[in-house]
């Protein structure tokens, strides 16, 4: 334990409204803490710069999952376990449930929150590619009111994000339009469980008959751990959408993906390996699409 807890203040607002008020009082000083699965690691390592914890764990407003006709609203304080246990998520957003099950062991899934994962802004975070392919929006809240932003535009650089110092992430909104999509996700870690991703991917797409042949539709691919932020592979998608799925297309898409990512070598892996894995996973996804189609 390399921090001195005597140096850390603690504010425990009873409501979200109070929480944003405390935050507004001295926005650069407070460190909102929910499940602590990331912040407490830094606390133990003695690397936290801010010394004021603002407790938002278990705030009722943040820990609810509401299904509306057009979208699912997931409170930012929902835990991975909450996601795994939610029927709508299991049915309509399977990638989110699956990636939640990869995040740490059961104990950490009971504490780690989706909003925390977004705010922590790790490029290796398991669930963020899923949020990206599902076209999630975020509702951010402060004493100045709420604003709604596209998740895809939220992370602007390594650990940088479109979040004002006085704002909290309130809700993650998922458009309910992905039933019937084929989905694919995979995490390549250092071992089978409890590992930080070397590369992770989430993808969805459809195949539709266009007069004579099968065409790819609304293919959406996002990858983690290969750029300073979770990355949507827009160029690769563009080459695939409204095109037939054949080897030449796959080749083109993989080339485009390779140009979009910016992998680095670090403690966990090499840039070369990460690039090759992205290539292989994009292929595996497209192969999965083809295989599902063949099953029909």
């Amino acid at each position: 334990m390399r921090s001195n807890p005597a140096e850390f203040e603690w504010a425990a607002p009873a409501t979200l409204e109070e929480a944003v008020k405390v935050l507004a009082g001295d926005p650069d000083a407070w460190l909102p803490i929910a499940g602590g699965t990331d912040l407490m690691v830094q606390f133990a390592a003695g690397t936290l710069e801010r010394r004021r914890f603002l407790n938002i764990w278990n705030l009722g407003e943040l820990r609810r999952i509401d299904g509306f006709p057009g979208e699912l609203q997931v409170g930012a304080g929902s835990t991975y376990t909450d996601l795994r246990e939610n029927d709508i998520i299991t049915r309509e957003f399977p990638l989110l449930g699956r990636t939640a099950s990869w995040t740490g062991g059961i104990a950490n899934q009971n504490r780690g929150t989706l909003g925390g994962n977004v705010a922590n802004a790790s490029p290796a975070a398991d669930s963020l590619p899923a949020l990206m392919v599902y076209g999630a929006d975020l509702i951010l809240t402060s004493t100045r009111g709420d604003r709604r932003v596209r998740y895809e535009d939220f992370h602007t650089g390594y650990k940088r994000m479109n979040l004002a110092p006085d704002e909290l992430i309130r809700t993650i909104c998922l458009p309910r339009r992905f039933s019937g999509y084929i989905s694919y996700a995979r995490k390549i870690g250092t071992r089978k469980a409890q590992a930080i991703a070397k590369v992770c991917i989430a993808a969805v797409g459809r195949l539709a008959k266009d007069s004579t042949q099968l065409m790819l539709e609304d293919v959406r691919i996002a990858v983690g751990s290969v750029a300073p932020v979770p990355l949507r592979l827009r160029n690769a998608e563009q080459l695939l959408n409204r095109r037939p799925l054949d080897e030449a297309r796959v080749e083109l898409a993989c080339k485009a993906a390779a140009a979009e990512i910016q992998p680095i070598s670090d403690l966990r892996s090499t840039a070369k390996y990460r690039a090759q894995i992205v290539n292989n996973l994009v292929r595996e996804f497209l192969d999965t699409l083809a295989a599902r189609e063949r099953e029909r």
Partner: protein
Amino acid sequence: MMSHSLKSNLGEKIVGKPTPRKEGPGKVTGEARYIDDLSFPDMLYGATVRSQIARGMLKKITFRPDVPWSEFVVVSVPDIPGKNYIALIENDQPCLAEKVVNHPEEPILLLAHPDRYMLPNAVAAVSIEYEPLPALFSIEESERKSEIIWGQDNVFKSYQIEKGDVDAIWAKADYIVEGEYSTGAQEQLYIETQGVIATYDCEQGVTVWGSMQCPYYVHKALMVVCDLPEDKVRVVQTETGGAFGGKEEYPSMIAAHAALLARKSGRPVKIVYDRAEDMAATTKRHPSRTRHRTALTKDGKILGGEIEFVIDGGAYQTLSPVVLSRGTIHAGGPYHWPAVRIIAKALATNAPPHGAFRGFGAPQSLFAMERHMDRIARTVKVSPAEIRRRNFLKPGQTTITEQTISEPIDLEKLLDRALVLSDYESKKSRFRQQGKNGKRKGGLGIAAFLHGAGFTGSGERYLSSVVGIEGQPNGGVRVLVSSTEFGQGTNTVLCQIAAEALGLEYGDVAIAQPDTAQVPNSGPTVASRTAMVVGKLLESAALGLKQTLIRAGMLGEPYAAEEFRCACRAYMERYGELRSLARYEQPDGIHWDDQKYRGAAYAAFAWAVYVAEVSVDLTAYSVSVDDFVALQEVGRVINPVLARGQVLGGVAQGIGFALYEKVEWRHGRMQNSQMTNYIVPTSADVPPIRVYFEEIANQHGAFGAKGIGELPMDGPAPAIVNAVEDALGIPFNSIPLMPEEICEALTAAAGPPSAGHSFSGVR
């Protein structure tokens, strides 16, 4: 070495049975007290200021003024009353660095404070100026001698073994096969970090409680550092949460530090490392490089060869000579070498000293041997099983140290059984049919190996261990040994042996907490020696106890357990104490020449054949171990549940050694000193490990036991890497074998970037 059939021993009531772990109830209820669970009145917490650089002169130490230093106890070199070294072999490792530092994380200063939360800031507030010196970070750099960092030539120790006329074999050879193999550092990663509590008192001297394997090593080190006589130093082992060799020598260091702080402050001092400090500062398995050059006949029989075995010892000698010795003696594997020359060296680098870790050099040299056997098999074009079969040691033949194999071990039969158990042939043909396509490729790998039990050569004679047993007021007995329990089953196995020897119930036997004030020195708990050597001594101490009762006329044979208990109680009432000691004596016919490194290296060898089945994921380039057969001959199995547990745990560590556990070094410092980044197998990563025993009784071990603890560490890595080669057709000769390297090899072979799996399209 005479052997006798096991059948004569099977009348045993307790030995060979799965008696429950002696200290199990405390462990499952949370009542067991480990060092960090103990707290003394007025206790201070200690911390260590460590070197930030790999090598350099210490210039200046300054204390940042924003820390209330008057509240702290600060210990530096002048506070050491005795000598400033940690007693081991060469005594070259300082307790605290004085003028120079030779590795990152080397201890320089010690701090203590009543509030443990105050320490990390204070440690960071001590700033040290260095004059850096050039440093060496690999075996190759140390060999080049661009800097001399230890002795005359950077060599901690070297050995040469010569058997037969090696120079004459090359002309006769049909094949000469060469190979180079290397293994990386491996962290023991016991889940309980290192820790001690020390007290100091002018009258009583120093007492240290702590997590450790070898209380008498710590005892010896404290006498030197604290300049105290034997009876003023007391060392008590507390419940120890895993060790694997990692708590063989390092506890002497942390104990000395706590003792110095306790001496200066006059208060009890606890030092418990956090995980990052433990990983960065304490010992790891020695990295190694082995080169083989082997002469063979056209049918693949070994004529002889040269083996060069080099290990990286880190900055101080510590245990490197002994690790090197064991690695050297195991370098030829379980094969018959008519002629062999082994040149072995332990070299200095500016990393923290590498040390004991389960297997102790043997996993390194056996990895090379068993990878090399597969290379030989490919060259000679016979199967991996067949090449081993043709070269196995047989009774009557001699090992590389010219020790005659006299026990009736039949390695061919052991291999055959392992092949049947692993369904080797049918799996092999299934993998062949898999062909080129598919997202995974399967493979099978074999490793055959041996592991010597007990100290090497004359080591047991020098140790001259003593074991005791004493009567208890309730009529039961208590085992008195310094041999420690750290999960492997010492308590249980020794109590079983004593109960069996005395005809008592398992519940009649207790074991004393290892406390140098209470128990004799039964030697360190290392080298797979406890069940065999200490157990055998305990057996004779127990027989001595029984004889005492018989001679006193209080017991006659045969007797029932209750009669023994009555006799014991009666004796204790009359004489106050009933106690028997036994001291190790070298058995006849065991000769070892320390100069020539020739003779009976070990009183017994355990033998094994392991078969790994792997699949390589061609999308992720990761290796998964899917099935594992571990077949071994370990002499008498004293406790089948515990013995199986030893093998399962050893195989899991071996899987980590082969595939996951990579220490990332930068300028001699471990970069990934967190569990998040140093990857050990989780419950999701272990295959079904199928464990089988054969038992040939060993006359030198208790009830025929041999050593078992280290053996299972030796075989998994080569078996797994052999299986990967079987799957991919690509030889990998360095571990840990990471997906990045497989990716590199496969994409180089297939051309970029569409390797991986091919797209099958929509039909």
